[in-house]
């Protein structure tokens, strides 16, 4: 354990010592001990849980919306040429706009608060998901679909039992990218368009020049992001156990080294 974590521990030690000796301005970068204290204070009065709940609630709502919209639109685009011709240009036009750039419009439409934040989350999550779904479905092998058709499957059965499951690994990887993007967009939205949540909290702490609270907030944002990502990955594994043939890059660098034949013996 200690052996694996030596680098972060060493860095923390240098940081703490540097701050105590005055090499680092602790108003600009507070030492770890001070951040930890800020974190404990924040947790003790219950505000931490409330802030986290507000943020996670928004991300769950916005992201669920993004997933439903992204997968449906992606599937329609991939399956129906009419939709493809009309919708793809719109998607391509909107995709390069960063979710944050939607914030002014969101405030105009929905005011400052949860609705705006959920909207921004949805924008952030939608594009990775819709793109992955489109590509995933477009790359289902022709022979797979032809086999289903020749076994007598109608269009509905072919889509629900063959095309979508075949594209599922791609769709889910888009969903994971989308979650990361949604979480980042949410925090950005809360910085300016919200009266609660983790993003709002760190913005507020900055106003009070409490850099220790700011860093504590950033830490919680990072940890929650990791936790959600891990949860999603577990779900992904469960949904695609059949994809066992893909070992992934682990097969390249992991595993046993290649044996070299011994020269001259």
């Amino acid at each position, binding site marked *: 354990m200690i052996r694996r974590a030596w680098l972060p521990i060493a860095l923390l030690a240098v940081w703490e010592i540097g701050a105590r000796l005055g090499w680092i301005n602790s108003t600009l970068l507070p030492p770890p001990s001070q951040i930890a204290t800020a974190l404990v204070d924040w947790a003790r009065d219950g505000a931490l849980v409330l802030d986290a709940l507000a943020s996670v609630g928004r991300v769950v709502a916005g992201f669920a919306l993004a997933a439903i919209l992204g997968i449906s639109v992606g599937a329609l685009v991939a399956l129906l040429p009419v939709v493809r011709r009309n919708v793809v240009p719109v998607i391509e036009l909107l995709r390069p706009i960063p979710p944050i750039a939607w914030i002014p419009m969101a405030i105009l439409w929905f005011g400052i608060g949860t609705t705006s934040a959920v909207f921004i989350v949805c924008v952030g999550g939608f594009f990775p998901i819709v793109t992955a779904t489109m590509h995933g479905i477009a790359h289902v092998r022709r022979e797979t679909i032809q086999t289903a058709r020749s076994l007598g499957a109608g269009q509905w059965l072919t889509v629900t039992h063959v095309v979508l499951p075949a594209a599922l690994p791609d769709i889910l990887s888009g969903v994971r990218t989308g979650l990361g993007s949604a979480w980042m967009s949410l925090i950005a939205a809360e910085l300016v368009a919200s009266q609660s949540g983790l993003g709002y909290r760190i913005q507020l702490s900055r106003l009070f020049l409490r850099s220790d609270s700011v860093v504590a907030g950033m830490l919680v944002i990072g940890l929650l992001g990791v936790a959600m990502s891990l949860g999603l990955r577990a779900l992904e594994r469960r949904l695609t156990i059949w994809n*066992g043939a893909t070992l992934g890059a682990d097969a390249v660098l992991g595993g046993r080294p290649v044996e070299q034949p011994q020269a001259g013996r």
Partner: protein
Amino acid sequence: MSNPRLVVDGVFKTYPSAEHHRPAVPVLAGIDFAAARGEFIVVTGPSGCGKTTLIDVIAGFLECDRGRVLVDGRAVTAPGRDRVVVFQTLALFEWMTARDNVAFALKAMGVGAVERRRIADSWLERVLLGGFGDRYPYELSGGMRQRLALARVLAAEPSCMLLDEPLAALDSQHRRMMQDELVKLWRDHDRTIVMVTHDLDEAVFLADRVVVLSERPSHVREIVPIDLPAAREERSRTSPRFRECVEHLWELLRA
């Protein structure tokens, strides 16, 4: 042949060119043959002559420019369960268990879940995959996957089976085992099979008649009846007549 099950009648197919300055590719130039109920037809020909294209037309995946395909007297216009295709890649449904793969055609027919399971399991037994109903395809060996693909087709009870080099990826030992398997399953079930292969031994071992196609644009060079006893066994492979048939096909292909 009074009442052929499958008729391929003057089929022409040209692939349009993808770019204007390149000419279109004429592939099939008038293919005619018929297959009786329960007959095993092997189609062979030079690489790129249009065998896969022909299978696609019969299956209804591809529309021909001229001519028609009849199954039991009805013209083919779309894919259907009466002509199931097995591709060389097998195209197993990797996300379904072996049982669900086999039961897929039954599900498409609207057979209830309990009945589906019973029928699928009995097909799995027949191809010696008895205990493997709950496994996913990736958990099966190459040969087992092959048998699973076969069971999946047989469960659809097609009147024609279209096989596009289904055994091409196998080693020779395995391939002979699967050929025996095919002979058995097919003889029990009296269904018409059209199979593409490059392997002339395989052609003679399996076929009632071999349709030899010419170079592209292809027509039928000759239809060779294989006058070996219908009940092929391993030892028929070494009989003089068997070798003669293989040589004859080889001559035709080189001509």
